C-alpha cells in the first residue's frame, strides 16, 4: 500500500504545509521589520537575537487571550469563518510546482503535490471560496463595522477577480495550457512569461494586491474607519487565524505570480551549466523561493509606500481601468498570435 510514490507525496505535503506556516509566521516578523526600516526605526528586536523569536511571542500572546464570542452572533458561522479563511488559504499550495522533479534510486518524483490539468482554474476557484471566510465571519459577528468590512471585501474580491481572470486568459492564450506544471516547464531557462505578457503581469499583480486584501487595497480592514473591518469582533486565536490567513495568502500569491510570470523554478542558464538533473531541481527550488521572497518583500514594500485607496477609486480602477485594459491585452495577444501563425 505504501508505495514509494505515496510516501514521497506524504512527505512533500507535510513539508510544504510546514514551510507555508513557517514562512507565514516569519512574514509577520518581516512585515514589522521592513515597516520599521522604511520608517527609520529598528523594529522588534527584544525577543531573541534581532527579535527572531517575536512570532513565537505573538503566537503565545494570541493563545493566551480570552476567547470571546458575542452573544448576538451566529455562533456556528462565527467559528466557521476563520476556519474557512485558513483552509482555503492553505489549499492553493497543492498545485504549485515547487520544483521540476527529483530522481531518487532511479525513479522520478515530481516536486508538485498534484498536477491538475486545470491548475489555473483551481487557483481561482479556491481564492474565490476564500471570500466566504471573510464574508461569513463579518456577517456572523452581527456588528455593523464587521458587516461593512465583509461587504467591502467581497465586492472588492469579486470585482478584481474579473480583471485577474481576463489577464490570465491572455497568458493561457500564449502558453496554450491550463496546467501550472506545463506553464512552468514552458518557461525553461530565461523564457519567462513576463517578457511575453508585461501588461498582463501588471494587471495580475495589481489584482493580486486586491485579492489578498493588502495595501493599497486593504479597505476591508482599514483601521481608521472600520476599527478592524471584518475581524472587529474576533479575539484570541480566531483573530490569529484571520491575520495568519492573510500572510499565507500573500505567500501563495507570490508563489503563483512567480510560477505564472517569473518562470517558477526556472533560472537562466539552468541547462548549460552541466549540472546533474537533481542539482538543477534543487537549485530550481531555491530560485523559486528566492522569487517568492522577493514578491513577499514587494507586497510589503508597496504597503509601506502607497496610501490606501478610497472605496470609489478602488471600484473605478477595477471596473473602468483594469477590465478594459485586460480585454485590450487579450485582443493584442490574439492579434500577435494570429500574425505569427500566418
Amino acid at each position, binding site marked *: 500500500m505504501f508505495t514509494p510514490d505515496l510516501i514521497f507525496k506524504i512527505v512533500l505535503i507535510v513539508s510544504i504545509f510546514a514551510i507555508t506556516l513557517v514562512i507565514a509566521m516569519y512574514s509577520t516578523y518581516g512585515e514589522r521589520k521592513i515597516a520599521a*526600516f*522604511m520608517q*527609520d526605526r529598528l523594529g522588534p528586536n527584544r525577543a531573541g537575537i534581532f527579535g527572531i523569536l517575536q512570532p513565537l511571542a505573538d503566537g503565545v500572546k494570541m493563545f493566551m487571550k480570552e476567547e470571546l464570542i458575542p452573544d448576538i452572533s451566529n455562533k456556528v458561522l462565527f467559528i466557521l469563518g476563520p476556519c474557512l479563511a485558513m483552509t482555503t488559504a492553505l489549499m492553493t499550495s497543492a498545485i504549485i510546482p515547487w520544483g521540476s522533479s527529483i530522481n531518487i534510486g532511479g525513479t522520478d518524483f515530481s516536486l508538485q503535490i498534484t498536477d491538475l490539468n486545470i491548475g489555473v482554474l483551481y487557483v481561482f476557484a479556491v481564492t474565490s471560496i476564500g471570500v466566504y471566510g471573510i464574508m461569513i465571519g463579518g456577517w456572523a459577528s452581527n456588528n455593523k463595522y464587521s458587516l461593512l468590512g465583509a461587504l467591502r471585501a467581497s465586492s472588492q474580491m469579486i470585482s478584481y477577480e474579473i480583471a485577474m481572470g481576463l489577464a490570465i486568459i491572455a497568458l493561457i492564450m500564449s502558453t496554450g495550457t491550463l496546467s501550472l506544471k506545463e506553464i512552468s516547464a514552458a518557461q525553461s531557462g530565461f523564457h519567462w512569461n513576463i517578457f511575453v505578457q508585461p501588461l498582463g503581469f501588471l494587471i495580475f499583480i495589481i489584482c493580486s494586491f486586491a485579492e489578498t486584501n493588502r495595501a493599497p487595497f486593504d479597505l476591508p480592514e482599514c483601521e481608521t474607519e472600520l476599527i478592524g473591518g471584518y475581524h472587529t469582533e474576533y479575539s484570541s486565536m480566531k483573530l490569529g487565524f484571520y491575520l495568519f490567513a492573510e500572510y499565507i495568502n500573500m505567500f501563495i500569491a507570490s508563489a503563483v505570480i512567480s510560477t505564472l510570470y517569473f518562470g517558477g523554478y526556472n533560472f537562466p542558464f539552468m541547462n548549460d551549466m552541466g549540472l546533474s538533473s537533481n542539482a538543477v531541481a534543487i537549485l530550481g527550488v531555491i530560485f523559486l523561493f528566492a522569487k517568492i521572497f522577493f514578491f513577499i518583500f514587494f507586497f510589503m*514594500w508597496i504597503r*509601506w*509606500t502607497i496610501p490606501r485607496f478610497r472605496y470609489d477609486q478602488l471600484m473605478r480602477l477595477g471596473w473602468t481601468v483594469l477590465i478594459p485594459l485586460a480585454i485590450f491585452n487579450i485582443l493584442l495577444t490574439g492579434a500577435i498570435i494570429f500574425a505569427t501563425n500566418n
Partner: protein
Amino acid sequence: MQSLTNRKKVVGKKEMTWVEKLYIPAILGGMRITLKHMFSKKTTISYPEQTREFSQIYRGMHVLKRDEKGAERCTACGLCAVACPAEAITMVAAERKKGEENLYREEKYAAVYEINMLRCIFCGDCEDACPKESIFLTDRIVPSDFERNEFVYGKDKLVETLENPIDISKRQTPEVLEFKKNKKLTHNR
C-alpha cells in the same frame, strides 16, 4: 509676497497629463524613497542600553541635598511649596532634638517632605525659591510605575544618600553663579 527660500511650489488644479494619470511613475518614485530609507541611519535610541544625551541644565527628578558634613539642608521653610505653580510640594516641619545635629543643619527640619511627581511640571521654581540651596532638579528621569500613589515621592526617594551624593554642579551655570553673588536678595544672604 516674494519668496525668500525659492522652495515655494505653486500648486494649481491643472489637468494631469497622460503619464501622470497612470500614477506608475509616481508610485515608482515613492518606492525609491522608501527603499532609500531602508538603508538610511535609524533614529531609534534603544533606551535602557543607550540614553539620549541630556542638556547640561536638564530639569528632571528633584534631589534634597545634604551639606558638607552630611546634614540635611532643608529647614522646611515652605518657600518651594509657595513657589510651586502646580501645588506639587507639601511638607511637615519638626524641631531638631538634641543629638541630631549631625542629621539636620538647622534647628528646624522637614519631618515629611513630599513631591507629587504627577503634579510636578519640572519648572524649577522650587530650586529658584530655595534659600538654603537644598532642593535641586537633576538629570535623572522619574521612572514609570503602575500605581498613582507611588508617584508621591517622600524623603526616602528625594534626599541624597551619604554614600551616593547627586552631582548638581552642572546646573551651576555662570549666570546662576552671578545671580548668587547678588547679596541684596534675601535669598542669597
